[in-house]
């Protein structure tokens, strides 16, 4: 199993969260998978890519920031109550709780401290910006696009199993871009492939029986779902929208698909799936990638 770290340096991007005038900071694995799949179709290698993705040990992680060192999502439900520093002042306690609630990403070298109850500050990775555009000489054609501009030192990284086909698709994607409004300048990136730092690599797993944190927005197969929900602490996120297809004239909506957000914690790992969420009566499958990669919380 050779996991590699793919560093993507964006300048400006738009990763919609259901609307054109909203943008997430980074993207989830299903967005990348769909983009790669469309690249694969253009190359005529979609069968090959699908069978690669369905292999048991093929996993993708969501994208997280990288600024000199990788960052990880905040584990949901951590730190445990007994690890938190004892504060008697209620005002101070609320202040700390708010601060931890707003924290989104944690630097790899401070991750252990966080689990042991240390308070961390949120770091600034870039700026959200909103731009207004229009179609001249027409009424009611004003619209707004939320974009994110990254700091020069900040890039996004994801972890995936390296293979020749995957690398080739990632290289092609650099020039197509990722995210929304690609044809008018957003979502272009430069790719760099690196080894996963040892401190991170030793925690990665897709098959463990101890406490784990999901690094991918994922959904277990039906058999594992009850158990994952019983012991897990998670947030749900909705993935939906229009299906892109060149074999249907009008645009159809995909079936709504709810998944566990990256950062959800579980008592043991589960098997994910690549779900088919095609609209009813559609002629070809529409895949949604939901196979998780995990981070072992305790070694």
């Amino acid at each position, binding site marked *: 199993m050779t996991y590699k770290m793919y560093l993507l340096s964006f300048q400006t991007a738009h990763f919609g969260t259901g609307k054109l005038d909203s943008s997430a900071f980074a993207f989830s694995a299903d967005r990348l998978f769909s983009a790669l799949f469309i690249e694969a179709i253009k190359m005529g290698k979609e069968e090959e890519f699908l069978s690669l993705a369905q292999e048991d040990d093929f996993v993708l992680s969501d994208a997280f920031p990288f600024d000199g060192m990788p960052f990880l999502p905040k584990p949901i439900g951590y730190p445990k109550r007994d690890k938190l520093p004892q504060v008697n002042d209620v005002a101070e306690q609320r202040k700390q709780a708010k601060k931890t609630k707003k924290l989104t990403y944690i630097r790899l070298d401070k991750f252990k401290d966080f689990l042991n109850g240390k308070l961390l500050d949120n770091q600034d990775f870039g700026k959200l910006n909103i731009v*207004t*555009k229009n179609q001249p000489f027409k009424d009611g054609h004003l619209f*707004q696009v939320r974009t994110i*501009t990254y700091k020069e030192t900040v890039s996004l990284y994801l972890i995936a199993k390296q293979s020749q086909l995957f690398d080739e698709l990632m290289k092609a994607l650099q*020039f197509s*871009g990722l995210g929304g409004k690609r044809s008018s*300048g957003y979502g272009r990136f430069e790719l760099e492939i690196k080894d996963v730092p040892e401190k991170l690599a030793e925690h990665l797993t897709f098959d463990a029986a101890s406490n784990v944190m999901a690094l991918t927005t994922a959904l277990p197969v039906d058999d594992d779902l009850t158990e994952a929900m019983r012991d897990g602490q998670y947030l749900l996120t909705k993935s939906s929208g229009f299906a892109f297809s060149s074999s*249907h004239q009008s*645009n159809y909506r995909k079936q709504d698909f709810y998944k566990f957000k990256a950062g959800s914690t579980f008592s043991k790992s589960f098997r994910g799936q690549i779900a088919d969420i095609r609209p009813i009566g559609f002629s070809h499958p529409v895949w949604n990638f939901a196979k998780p990669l995990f981070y072992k919380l305790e070694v």
Partner: protein
Amino acid sequence: MTYAKVKISANIHLETGLHIGASNAFAAIGATDSPVIKDPMTNYPIIPGSSIKGKMRSLLAKVYNEKLAASPKDDGEILSRLFGNHDSKEFKIGRLIFRDAFLLNAEELEQKGARGYTEVKFENTIDRITAEANPRQIERAIRDSVFGFEVIYEITDESAEQAEEDLQAVVDGLKLLELDYLGGSGSRGYGKVAFEDLKIETVFGSYDTSRLHDLLRTEV
């Protein structure tokens, strides 16, 4: 199976000041009332890819469309396949990908003595009857700024034979842009641009661009 991506890059040289407006939430009395769009991190002016794409498309629509198109979805086949057409099955996503153009020569401008990268131009309206003036201020990206322009063209099986025709249209678009203006207030001098150091290269896959080189050299 052919699959390739061809990059056309150039430097956009501003021959007159450029104004691509931004939405301004708040303007103090006496301050610029129509600012230009800027990069939020560096605060340098930029040319958004959507402005170049929109302008080029509407210019080419006057040349390549056989009949007058009331809206972009009525564009002819050449424009639809290049720029995309949400109404057609096969061209939902066009073959071209434009990029935002960022300022390249900030340091050089500073050496030349520029105090900032934008200027504020005072203009006014004069009433024809009362001869009363009504002044306004417009911000512009200064002359001699150079922006990096880039467009990616995608070649697949379907487009392999049409590549030359498509790129000819792109080159025509650049030529038309030089004869027209980019951004706002172009009828009073703003936004004259020149495309310099036009380059074409294959960045992914294999496609022979040597014949296209000649096209660029002769046309622009």
